[in-house]
């Protein structure tokens, strides 16, 4: 940074440096998204006793690249009688929050673009904007299927954001901070001496489950992919999109998946902390390796869910959200409060 500043001046150097950092996060992100689609097709393929992509490159490894090039080449068709401005705005609205949220996500205790004290709040705020992209896409396409998809998405988001928020309130209570770095650090010491047992997933187990499931719903993934509803409303909100406009929705969905898995790791699985004692050398030390391993585990669960469960109907999703998750989280928040005030509190 000093080098840049000496050439470009303090102000401009800082801007360029920050931009470089953004590129360093976003470029591997996009690669990760591409290979997440590959992983999805392979994992689900094996779960369904198929092979998955195996023609493009060794083991089909170039498949995501080929897909990307294909999508770049395709025409973006603007449906007649669609609302053109909104139609093009929608994909931007959905990719923007999916990427912006990464600004505050720490990968290790110092590897973070912006270590702000309100990072959790920032993430909550920015991710809930993603649904506008879906709803606007559903409206702008001027198709009944896409409109149904948009409506479903809106219904889904009101059912899940609340439960998700309450799940995070629990985390907030035990860590006493909105800063993601602090939340992870807090998990590193506690009743079981900072080992795997002291991470939030165990004491906050119901909240962990609610968060994980709401995360699947939040990202519109199977079995909660009603907004897309492939066998019912064809492709739901993005039924009218083609080429890169479609690809951007696709990128946003996968970037969101990775984001939710990062959040789950940070809030409940101890982020970059190692599950092993410190005496185990590099395995015992907290590092990006552990963060990536935990994220991969959560992502694998996402794929696993998709291969295991039939799609919920949207009224069933709403019922699950309002009648199960919200009461569970509410009760657990109260229980947690009482627990923290009691002599057997784990968090003193």
């Amino acid at each position, binding site marked *: 940074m000093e080098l840049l500043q000496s050439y470009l001046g303090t102000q401009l150097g800082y801007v360029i440096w920050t931009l470089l950092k953004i590129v360093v996060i976003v470029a591997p992100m996009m690669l990760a998204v591409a290979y997440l689609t590959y992983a999805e097709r392979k994992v*689900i393929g094996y*779960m*369904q*006793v*198929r092979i998955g992509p195996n023609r493009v490159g060794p083991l089909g490894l170039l498949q995501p690249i080929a897909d990307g090039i294909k999508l770049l080449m395709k025409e973006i068709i603007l449906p*007649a*009688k669609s609302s053109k401005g909104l139609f093009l705005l929608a994909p931007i609205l959905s990719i923007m929050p999916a990427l912006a949220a990464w600004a505050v996500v720490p990968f290790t205790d110092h590897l973070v673009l912006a270590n702000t004290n309100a990072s959790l709040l920032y993430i909550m705020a920015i991710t809930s904007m993603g649904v506008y992209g879906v709803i606007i896409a559903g409206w702008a396409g001027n198709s*009944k*299927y896409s409109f*149904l998809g948009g*409506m*479903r998405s809106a219904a889904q988001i009101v059912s899940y954001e609340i439960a998700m928020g309450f799940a995070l309130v629990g985390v907030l209570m035990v860590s006493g901070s909105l800063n993601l770095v602090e939340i992870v650090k807090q998990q590193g010491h506690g009743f079981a001496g900072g080992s795997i047992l002291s991470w939030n997933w165990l004491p906050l187990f119901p909240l962990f489950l609610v968060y994980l499931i709401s995360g699947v719903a939040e990202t519109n993934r*199977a*079995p909660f*992919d*009603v907004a897309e*509803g*492939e*066998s*019912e*409303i*064809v492709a739901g909100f993005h039924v009218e999109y083609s080429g890169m406009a479609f690809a951007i929705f696709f990128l946003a969905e996968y970037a969101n998946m990775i984001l939710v898995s990062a959040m789950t790791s940070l809030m409940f699985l101890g982020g970059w902390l190692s599950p092993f004692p410190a005496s185990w050398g590099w395995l015992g030390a907290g590092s990006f390796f552990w963060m990536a391993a935990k994220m991969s585990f959560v992502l694998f669960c996402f794929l696993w869910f998709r*291969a*295991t*469960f*039939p*799609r*919920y*109907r*949207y*009224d*069933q999703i709403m019922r699950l959200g309002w009648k199960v998750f919200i009461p569970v989280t509410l009760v657990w928040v109260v229980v947690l409060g009482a627990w923290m005030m009691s002599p057997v509190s784990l968090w003193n």
Partner: protein
Amino acid sequence: MTVSEQTKVGQNYVDGLRERFGAAILDAEWQTADQVTVTIKLGSLPDVVEWLYYKQGGWLSVLFGNDERPLNGHFAVYYVLSMEGIVKSWVVVRALVEEHRPEFPSVTPRVPAAVWGEREIRDMYGLVPVGLPDERRLVLPDDWPDDLHPLRKDAMAYNQRPAPTSDSETYTFVNDATGSTRDVPLGPLHITSDEPGHFRLFVDGEDIVDADYRMFYVHRGMEKLAETRMGYDEVTFLSDRVCGICGFTHSVAYSSAVENALGLVVPPRAQAIRSVFLEVERLHSHLLNLGLASHFVGFDTGFMQFFRVREKAMTMAELLTGARKTYGMNLIGGVRRDIMKAERTRTLALVAELRVEVTQLVDMLLSTPNLRQRTAGVGILDKKVARDFSPVGPLVRASGFKRDVRADHVYAGYASLPFDVHTEDSCDVLGRVLIRAREFFDSLSIIEYALDNLPAGPVLLEGFHYRPHQFALGFAEAPRGEDIHWAMTGDNQKLYRWRCRAPTYANWPPLRYMLRGNTVSDAPLIVASIDPCYSCTDRVTLVDVKKNKSTTVPYKEIERYGRERKDSPLK
């Protein structure tokens, strides 16, 4: 054929009709021991059909018209009732319609099941069902000439096809909803159906208030083709092509119709072999539907697994018939191919493997937690609606009616084969899935038993002669319900009339009631739960919305472009 007095089954129905309607009953003639055709006066048609249907436990299997002007100077309408009361038999009610007054009293207001058949008779013969509330066409396209009725003997050649005169559909969809609704179209081409059918859902939010649909986008004119171009044995191969899944049942139904009409006694070994093939067909068809049901609820793993296992059933078909489908096996009088020892052994091994694998899969499917949530209570076919509309197959059995042609009117080798007729009282999609699963295992047992107990003897009856103007019914229980065919021999080595009714034809009319009250999410699932067979697109309509004009590209133009690759009609 002449049936002796002692063996006549169904005499009680004829006696009852004579007692009740007296002079209206003109004639009763038995075609086989359990098939009687009763000719009645036209005016009492609704009364007679209603009495047989509701008072005597009859179900309306098929109705059709016939142009008998060359024979007796009249048109005729036939209402085929499957009597499933105390005595199980077929009663065919026949009434003659005068040529100069082409109308007949509609039965639909009394027996709703007659609705599609009567609409089709109006299309095909120009006979007007007086009192039929639904005045829309059923089979013919919107722009078909009003005075051209394809199945009249003097109407048109099989390959003639009036050029389309209009680019737009004028078909009106019926919406009985009281409040305000929005239309959501499902088809003619939709992701979940490989065949064209246009469903119009009238929705309030996601809730389906009412639904209507039209089919016959790809009417192939097979009946006309068979009557004008093909010999008797050729039609067996044509009837195989009625369906891409359960074609063999159609050729069994067709050949047994001709056999029944001529009084042929098919060798027992041929009958047993037909039963084996029919059950092999049921195996792969039920696996297909179970797989699709999984797909429609978004459970693709189940779909993949069922299709993987289904390959074994296809291998079995290949082993037994030489093709992955059990096609091309039937002739009038028997089958073309015997089952040898090596094939038998390997088939039995495959049956054992299938039993193990499918047991696992069905267990997996039923223990998947939200599968039950997605299917239970969805697409309810009310018992009363079922009784009124005479649906067939797993659909009617899931509404608590024990209807299965294999048991009710024994054909092929089923008299000696062990199986149950499974019913469910839940009336929903789950019930239909469960019934299909159970029937699958029954089919495995039937195949095993039949292969172990194959009667000896020839597989084909030869050296018989065709007599003109003999007619009878033939039937077979296809995986999705009964196929019923009615064939009348002609005097030129061709059929005079062939009526082929696929099971789905009987299942479409009640579908509307099954869709009501469900959500859009469930619509494809409900449609798939009747295991429908629609049928390939013959023309394309291009719509240019910007210029507000549409052009229709005829099939021939596309075919020409396909060959020459020049002057694309699509530009």
